[in-house]
């Protein structure tokens, strides 16, 4: 069991993001993640002054699946259709690192103990910690938007039983995993939705705002998806470079070990420099990953959520138009007019409600996005500068030492 706990300064950065909305009535953060075999348990910590909670403070352990369950229940709730439902975090990918660890185990015989320990530590730092960090950050932003909803005019989440259970219940939730049928159902639903999206795209938009939003989101979504993929590639190759530094340092040390001329000293010094460079470069790469790639990744999904909202609204619009037609027909035939009228009225109501909340949601979404981009870009830039300065001073020192030799 590996405990993933971060150094405190990093921690603060993330925790702060939760109560950004300066509402102290409900503060949620995830200070810790525990890695237990193939499960990762996140500690969800809640502080609240809301009367609907029985206690002012909770601390529960939740797994990835629990978060998915929460997401699904929220999506399925009709009431929330007019909201941008925060996307569920992606399943943390522990497979890659685990595979690497496995390989490490195999290659153990050919490595010295120190090398093995170093590699293991490096792996943990590089992959598992960031993963926990990333997951946590996503969850916190998710909680944050949930908390946003709380403060907005709809006190829906406050009333949401499932959400409260999620936060309060101090035992394992033991959410039922989706079975194969449901999985297939979900897949089928997605198919239908995509087909439906195509169909209703023909429906003439009545509201210019939504027309604009739709175009923007479609465009933006494809762009951000692309940017995310490219950023991922970039950070990955940056990590490779850092890895290479590490290998070079190791190879230099090996060379030095078998040498006993004046060369040895140079080699050792050189290996040391590369080892230090590796750390800086690694930090640079993972901060870039965290601040830039994760930002893009999150907003790729968030924009999908916004698109889903638009879809739901467009669906409602189509329903309304259909009900209009049905009413016309009923009037022509002269039967079931009252029922059709009722139906048409309901559809209109739903559509209006969705439009109204959708407009609000999308506007706030835009503001949120800009704030998030700003924050992350500034943080990333500052970190880049910090790391670059570190390596500059490191390099300068090393050059001095080498020159004096």
């Amino acid at each position, binding site marked *: 069991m590996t405990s993933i706990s971060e150094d405190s300064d990093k921690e603060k950065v993330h925790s702060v993001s939760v109560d950004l909305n300066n509402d102290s009535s409900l503060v949620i953060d995830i200070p810790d993640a525990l890695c237990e075999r193939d499960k990762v348990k996140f500690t969800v910590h809640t502080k609240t002054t809301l009367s609907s909670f029985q206690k002012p403070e909770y601390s529960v352990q939740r797994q990835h699946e629990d978060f998915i369950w929460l997401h699904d229940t929220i999506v399925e709730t009709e009431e929330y259709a007019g909201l941008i439902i925060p996307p569920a975090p992606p399943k943390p990918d522990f497979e890659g690192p685990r595979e690497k660890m496995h390989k490490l185990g195999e290659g153990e015989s050919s490595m010295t103990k120190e090398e093995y320990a170093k590699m293991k530590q490096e792996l943990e730092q590089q992959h598992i910690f960031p993963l926990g960090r990333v997951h946590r950050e996503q969850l916190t932003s998710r909680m944050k938007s949930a908390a946003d909803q709380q403060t907005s005019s709809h006190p829906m989440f406050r009333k949401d039983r499932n959400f409260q259970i999620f936060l309060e219940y101090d035992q394992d939730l033991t959410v039922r995993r989706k079975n194969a049928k449901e999985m297939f159902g979900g897949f089928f639903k997605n198919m239908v939705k995509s087909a439906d999206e195509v169909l209703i795209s023909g429906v003439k938009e009545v509201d210019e705002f939504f027309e604009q939003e739709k175009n923007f989101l479609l465009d933006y979504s494809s762009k951000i998806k692309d940017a995310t993929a490219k950023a991922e*590639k970039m950070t990955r190759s940056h990590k490779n470079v850092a*890895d290479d530094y590490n290998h070079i340092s190791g190879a230099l040390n090996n060379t030095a070990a078998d040498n006993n001329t004046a060369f040895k000293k140079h080699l050792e010094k050189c290996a040391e420099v590369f080892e230090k460079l590796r750390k800086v470069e690694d930090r640079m790469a993972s901060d870039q990953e965290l601040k830039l790639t994760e930002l893009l990744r999150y907003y790729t999904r968030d924009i999908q959520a916004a698109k889903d909202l638009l879809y739901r609204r467009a669906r409602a619009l189509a329903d309304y138009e259909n009900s209009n037609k049905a009413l016309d027909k009923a009037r022509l035939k002269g039967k079931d007019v009252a029922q059709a009228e009722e139906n048409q009225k309901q559809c209109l109501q739903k559509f209006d409600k969705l439009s109204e909340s959708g407009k609000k949601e999308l506007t706030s979404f835009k503001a949120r996005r800009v704030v998030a981009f700003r924050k992350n870009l500034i943080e990333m830039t500052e970190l880049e500068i910090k790391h670059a300065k570190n390596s500059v001073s490191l390099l300068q020192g090393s*050059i001095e030492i080498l020159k004096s030799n």
Partner: protein
Amino acid sequence: MSLCHFYPSLVIKFFRVCVCVCVELKMAASSERSPPPFPDSEEPELLEDSDEGADAFTGTSISEMDSPSPDSTRPPKDIFNEPPEDIFSDPLSNINSEPQKKVDAKIPSPSSDEAVDLFSDPLDDDSEVMSSPEVQNPMPDLLNEPVEAPKSDVLGEPPVHRDAARQQDVFEDPPKSSSKSSSVKKAASSEMFGDDDDDEDLFKEPPKVVTKKPQPSGPPVDVFTEVKSDVKVKPQVKDDPTDLFAEEALTAPAPKPSAGSSSSRTNGVHSEEQDLFSEATVELSLDSPRNDRKNKDAVKPSVSAPAAPVASSSSKAPSKTLKELEEEESEDKFDLNISITNPEKVGDGMNAYMAYKVSTQTSLTMFRSKTFTVRRRFSDFLGLFEKLSEKHSQNGYLIPPPPEKSILGMTKVKVGKEDPSSAEFVERRRAALERYLQRVVSHPSLLQDPDVREFLEKEELPRAVSTQALSGAGFLKMLNKATDAVSKMTIKMNEQDVWFDEKIQDVENEEQHLRKLHVMVESLVNHRKELSGNTAVFAKSVAMLGSSEDNTALSRALSQLAEVEDRIEQLHQEQASNDFFTFSELLADYIRLLGAVRGCFDQRMKAWQRWQDAENMLQKKREAEAKLLWANKPDKLQQAKDEITEWEAKVTQYEREFERISATVRKEVIRFDKEKARDFNRQVIKYLESLLHSQQQLIKYWDAFLPEAKAIV
């Protein structure tokens, strides 16, 4: 040198057996044929003490002394063969070990001579001995045979003596020389070198015989006491200086590449020959005190003409070598800058080639002017390497290897596509050639080579033909390499020199490690190139995202970010090429150079093998002779003796060659190690500076971006 005495000892043994007890004959004969394998542990340093004892016993003990002597002589010799610096750093030990070795080597020979003389007593005079050579008397007389044998042995043993020996002998023994020198000289001139020496020594021996005769003679015991007596030390000491001198004289001219020698002397910088020469003189100077002393003590009358030049040259030697040392130290500061620029494609199609401008800037007087420029093509560089390695590699010099041929890379260039990979190829080759030339000229001995100078100075070079990869010559070379590799595997050298033993291991390990390191650095280069490419793609993507963004400030910031990433991409690209040119190529160079170092070791091994083969051959010849002797076939005996003489000369020559090559290789490797450490440090600093520059640029870029990010509203 050691085994040369083997024969006399056998003879002595044989004789003793003959003269004393006939009954013992069989036993003795059997022991001759298969001389006991002598354990190495046998102390060679017993020498002076054991002389009496050993000699008193029988010939066997002498032979015992002789056979292990390769072992015993080598260590001191190695010490002595170390580069001049070392000699200077601890002259004491050298002085100690050096004379020891000499005494070692010498003592047996006079003693055997005397033994011979003793036995040749019945033969009445020198003239007979003199006339005896080769053809003359196939006398069945046992006594006469041995006389001849030792003669040739002693003489064959130092092919070194040559002129010096001759002169000295002539000097020392005027009475005899006057009468015989003419005949001897005739013989000398008519005969081969080795035989030539024989005569000289023949000539030298007789006088000794004469001097000894009056002394109590007969029983072997006396012979050995004689050796110890002062009178006897005399010839021995005399031998020493001559030998030394001869050695010096020999070693100096021997490796002289005929063309280079004369001009090199006149050059400002000291030459390879001078090096060798100085080495020889150093050795001399170390010996000389002792020699001088000995001379004064024992040989007062014979401190003769040849001794004087020896002394004088030895006194001059240290100061000269000191100066040379300083020169060697300041070698890397020497004023010779070579740069290769302007790679230019000449011709079209498959006959096209790249010509490089080789510019030299120097203040060395050996060159005609201070700056000059020539155009050379790649095969010229290869040709230079071929010439140099032909001339110098068998001497154990470390010839810097040129960059490898690359048919693929060159074909690309020939086809003439102006793509970045062929430009990179040309630049890579240009840089590699530049480093190659710089390494060549920074080698003190190679710089003196006329071919190097010609390469740098001469307008037109004859086209190097044998360097084409696909030519017949190339094929032959490959074949040679293959046979070399096979023969290398078959040679089982039992390394007795700890230094070489360790160094060979070290070099192999280092090469392996460097290969691994090189792979890592190559992967760094690739990954950084990848990173550069990915950054460029990301920059484009971010720019697109920025254009779609409807918040103006954010849109602006994103396009700024795209610009920053674009610059960073450039930075990564530059860094990748720095990774490659300063780091990866450095390692590639050293992997090649370590290969060349191993080549030096191989050359040394080959020399050793040659020596061992000669020893074995000599052994066989001796056995054959012993058989003949036993079978009493005098007609073939003479021929066998000649062969033995010939092979003894060869053995000595090869041993000397081996020792010389060992010394050279050792010096070269030490020089290489020193250079490597310095060069590596320099390159690493350069590389780190390039990294530093990248990071500084990075700070600048991000610093510029920060206000943009903050401006997002």
